[in-house]
């Protein structure tokens, strides 16, 4: 499945209203493949809204989102398959083990083997917790488990909303490394955080 052009992600003049509030006022973003964007701004500046617009969960009042030369609203499910999202909620069922959760969520997209799962869990440093029920994991461990899902998703566009929440210092470093690696490998990363992202080549989009 080759897209007509490999130009990455463009957000063009997006305006979004939430009730009476004009949250996004003409946001532009050009994120070609291989770029790592840090979306910054004070609380309520619309960081999450921007990510949700890009993901297609919110429809903007004006403007458009373009992925590899095509408007995402015309791409439908095909666009979803090329995108991985890490939101505030990790989408893990408390009664299932981390492995069962991730195997299911990745399995919706592609066939996944135990070897791959093991490798990804150890990469995120939670190999010994993979077979515990998710309800027994700490918030940081859940976040790492959710990152396993992103890592295995085969998506080239990563949308990460506050990925560093609940992570320890080593975790922040690990996540930063994974995001930078994904961008370097030809993917696109959009991440919102309040703290600076200590990786080379990170571009910043400031929302007011």
């Amino acid at each position: 499945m080759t897209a007509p052009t490999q130009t990455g992600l463009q957000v063009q003049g997006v305006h979004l209203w939430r009730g009476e509030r004009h949250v996004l006022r003409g946001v532009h973003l050009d994120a070609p493949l291989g770029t790592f964007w840090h979306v910054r701004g004070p609380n309520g500046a619309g960081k999450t809204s921007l990510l949700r617009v890009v993901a297609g969960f919110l429809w903007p009042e004006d403007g458009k989102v373009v992925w590899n030369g095509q408007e995402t609203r015309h791409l439908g499910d095909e666009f979803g398959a090329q995108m991985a999202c890490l939101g505030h909620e990790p989408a893990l069922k408390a009664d299932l083990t981390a492995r069962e959760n991730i195997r299911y969520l990745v399995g919706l997209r592609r066939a996944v083997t135990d070897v791959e799962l093991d490798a990804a869990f150890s990469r995120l440093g939670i190999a010994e917790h993979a077979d515990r029920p998710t309800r027994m994991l700490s918030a940081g461990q859940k976040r790492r488990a959710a990152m396993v899902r992103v890592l295995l998703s085969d998506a080239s566009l990563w949308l990460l909303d506050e990925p560093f929440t609940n992570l320890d210092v080593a975790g922040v470093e690990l996540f930063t490394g994974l995001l930078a690696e994904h961008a370097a490998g030809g993917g696109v990363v959009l991440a919102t955080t309040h703290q600076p992202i200590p990786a080379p080549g990170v571009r910043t989009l400031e929302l007011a």
Partner: protein
Amino acid sequence: MNAGEGTVPTGMLAAAAATFRRDVALAFRRPGQMLQPVVFFLIVTTLFPLSLSPQLSQLRDISPGILWVGALLSSLLALESLFRADLEDGTLEQWVISGQPLAVQVLARILAHWTVSGLPLVAAAPLVGASLAVPASAFGTTMLLLGLGTLCLSGLGAAGAALTLGSRRASVLLSLLVLPLAMPILIFGARGVDLAILGEPTRGPLLLLSALTILTLSLTPWAAASAVRISLE
């Protein structure tokens, strides 16, 4: 990790099967919750013989109605949880961007929901039937009708549950939405049990209920999928 090299994308049916398996597995981790509707069904239907005269002929006359109203109300109990937890923990978002058609995922959810909430009612039907003086010869048809009816209701309920995802206390609203639509199920279902008790042919109600179920299951997943998308806004 590089994207897309040598990995096999999951097909639509395989993804639906995975959702079905996971939903059923999840339900079995909480057996108490799963059994609530069937316990409710048993209790409500045994209240009638206790409160009415225990005359068998009279019980037999009203048993189809009791059976069906009981099954309808018990199924309603389980409906609100159909999508709620998945909305709250972010699973619905993952469904939407999984690259799989959302309506097919919703259909898998409907079937799984029926397996854990509708099938136990069907299994309990002979017990309830016996307490309501339904002759054993009518058990088979009754179970078949109940199975079709609860499946149809799960389909209707999915659309209702998805539409009411936006409101906090949705159970009353959900009942108001779903119960009027469920009336044909009640009418044909009860009539079918009635005929079965009298020993008359039940082909008519069975076919009508099957048609209703097929119609519901082919339309409501789309409606529910659209409503789920709206609920993410």
